[in-house]
């Protein structure tokens, strides 16, 4: 798994590539915990190149979501491939997270405060 990070004013974009499973979710967790500690106000996770997310990966995202709520941080996820989208849907995380079809939609929502 690889994570590329870019910042655009108050928006932090993490472009993740590779599977997020038991082997890789700890690395994602370390990064997300750092971002929560730094009180990142707007975080966009681009999963276009993520073919699979297991339960430990989903739990890692919930943990960040929970931490960011404490300081009114916003989090959005975009570009889920169908298999990953299904993993979110099956445990109703699509109802919890702000999920968008692409980066443009996610940026718009974050900028407009609807994410």
């Amino acid at each position, binding site marked *: 798994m690889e994570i590329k990070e870019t910042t655009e004013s108050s928006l932090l974009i993490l472009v993740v590539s590779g599977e997020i499973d*038991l082997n890789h979710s700890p690395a994602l967790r370390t990064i997300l915990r750092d971002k929560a500690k730094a009180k990142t106000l707007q975080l966009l996770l681009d999963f276009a190149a993520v073919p699979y997310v297991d339960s430990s990966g989903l739990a890692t995202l*919930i*943990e960040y979501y929970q931490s960011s709520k404490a300081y009114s941080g916003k989090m959005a996820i975009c570009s889920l491939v169908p*298999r990953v989208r299904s993993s979110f849907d*099956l445990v109703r995380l699509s109802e919890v997270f702000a999920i968008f079809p692409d980066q443009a939609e996610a940026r718009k929502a974050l900028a407009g405060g609807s994410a």
Partner: protein
Amino acid sequence: MSPTPKKTNPPSDVILEVKDLVQSYNGRAVLNGLNFKVRKGETFVIMGGSGCGKTTLLRILIGAQKPTSGSVHLFGEDITKASTQELDRIRLRFGMNFQFGALFQSMTVGENIALPLQEHSQVDPSLIEMVVKMKLELVGLTGFENFKPAELSGGMRKRVGLARALALDPELLFSDEPTSGLDPVMTAVVDQLTLDSTRKIGVTAVVVSHDMTSCFRIATHMLMLGSGPRQGEIIAEGTPDEIRANPDPFLQQFVRGEADGPIAFRLSQDDYLKHLLQEG
């Protein structure tokens, strides 16, 4: 704690291959030279009447029992020749949903589901708690983490067993009679879970069942094991449509659930007479 096993799938899409499998007890073959393959993404249903050897076959497929002869290649490795250590590594890649849940009675529902993650992963306890909640949501038991198995109905226990089998997000799920004893609504729920796991997430499922409605609802491939005079052999194998169209009277009696046919409930008149007159 062991790391997640390295995925070593064979180059083909075959996940499980059974070759010339024989299981005999006291010289009587319960399984007699079985050959079949399960491919990635399939829902492979093994059907058969009571005592036909379905559960024995499942025990052999998961490495809980060594067959009399033959081989079982799981993810490309022959588990009939695997050491305990090798088997433990292979077992991390599949989940087993036992017929009656096989839950630890002294543990809560949450502890039962968390167990595989605690034993076989390095996932942080706070994340494991979230995974448990997600798995319970998946099987429609949100909020039941602190219940003990004895406080649940049989159907609920079965669903907890399924949640535990899915705890490590296995590539392959074995299920032993996942819908027996469930009401029609809960049967449909469990079937839908199997369908979601296979079609949407890409899990491969091997399901042992004699619930025909459920079998035809979930299967992409079916195999029928014989009993009585055809004990130990594969009666038929194919897609659900091929199974429906197969004229084998043994198969059709089973599929239609008819009392009369080659699957004998009683001995023939001659055999009964012989039995009655037999001395000793």
